[in-house]
């Protein structure tokens, strides 16, 4: 497209005019977004707002991974699906919403179960990944694939009235395993089906994931171009903690990258070299789809 070759089309200028005029975006920033690709892992409460705001902003290629179909109980928070899509693939339903908002965006539907056999290929095909998933086994897998493929990971999560957001594996920042080398006991893991969630909480976190991704992509604009203002992600090595009940936002400093991390340490030191070699369901005590029979207190 024209954007890939040094200028914006008239269509692009009118569509993106309201963000183009920001000095942190500008023509160079808009071209950067158009030349970028983002993988959304999970087309649920986080993935819906994340995907739509990224597509709206003109990210050139958006991939959506989800193996589930839309259920009516999703619709209180997964706002880009529709009643008419109940029973349809979530990835396809979200892709359809993205296309109808912005047909300039290339959308790839990955209607597959993410696992050790496909995660590396999928993550390697995009510049940045967003963890919008809903269970520890998938979160460890996504993290490891991003680290081994050299991709930054914008991670969001939500439950009840609370949400969390951070960026992993960005430049020298920590990864998910640096923070959580040992997985939680499955009896302490609660998902949104079990614990409930206010729909606007993943809405807020997913929207912030999109904003953080945009800032991360804009940081790649060459500094010498025009009068572009520098910008970059805010949550590498930092964690946002949101409590909707009290409307409290807390920003926390995280530990640096850990030299003994199982996956992001040097190739000589790390113990995980290929995601295919890890049994994530075993590691976490249960897989992404196992029913939780435990105590479920946390």
């Amino acid at each position, binding site marked *: 497209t024209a954007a890939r070759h040094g200028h914006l089309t008239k269509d692009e200028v009118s569509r993106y005019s309201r963000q183009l005029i920001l000095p942190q975006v500008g023509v160079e920033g808009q071209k950067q977004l158009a030349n970028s690709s983002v993988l959304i892992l999970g087309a649920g409460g*986080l993935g819906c707002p994340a995907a739509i705001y990224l597509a709206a902003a003109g990210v050139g290629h958006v991939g959506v991974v989800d193996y589930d179909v839309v259920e009516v109980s999703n619709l209180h928070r997964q706002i880009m699906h529709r009643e008419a899509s109940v029973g349809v693939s979530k990835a396809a339903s979200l892709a359809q919403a993205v296309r109808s908002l912005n047909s300039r965006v290339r959308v790839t539907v990955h209607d597959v179960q993410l696992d050790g056999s496909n995660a590396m290929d999928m993550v390697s095909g995009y510049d940045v990944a967003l963890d919008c998933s809903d269970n520890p086994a998938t979160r460890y897998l996504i993290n490891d694939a991003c680290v081994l493929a050299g991709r930054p990971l914008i991670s*969001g999560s939500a*439950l009840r009235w609370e949400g969390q957001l951070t960026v992993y594996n960005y430049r020298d920042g920590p990864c998910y395993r640096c923070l*959580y080398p040992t997985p939680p006991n499955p009896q*302490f893991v609660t998902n949104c089906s079990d614990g409930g969630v206010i729909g606007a909480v993943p809405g807020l976190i997913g929207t912030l994931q999109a904003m953080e991704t945009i800032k991360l992509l804009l940081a790649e604009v060459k500094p010498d171009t025009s009068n572009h203002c520098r910008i970059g992600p805010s949550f590498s090595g930092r964690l946002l903690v949101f*409590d909707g009940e009290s409307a409290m936002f807390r920003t926390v400093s995280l530990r640096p990258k850990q030299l003994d991390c199982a996956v992001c340490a040097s190739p000589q030191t790390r113990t995980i070299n290929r995601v295919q070699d890890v049994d994530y369901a075993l590691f976490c005590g249960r897989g992404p789809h196992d029913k939780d029979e435990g105590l479920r207190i946390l």
Partner: protein
Amino acid sequence: MEVSLNFSGGAELLFGKIKQHTISLPAEETWSMKKLLNWIKDNLLKERPELFLQGDMVRPGILVLVNNADWELVGQLDYLLQNKDEIVFISTLHGG
């Protein structure tokens, strides 16, 4: 010595669903985080302590913060509490 404790992400469910606690500790003693964890176990834990502690450590999946910094940055179990410190225990969320 006054210390504020905050539990969130579900960790508050072990503490009578109360997220915010202010506690007074005898200032004539020194209080390491290790000692604080024991104090919490003996004085605040409403449910089975193994849901919060695993041996001397906080169980996996709970992030500990001292004044909004990961406790790994300030010495973890060896950090010595100061008056007015805010200690936060956040259970990591996985939902989406």
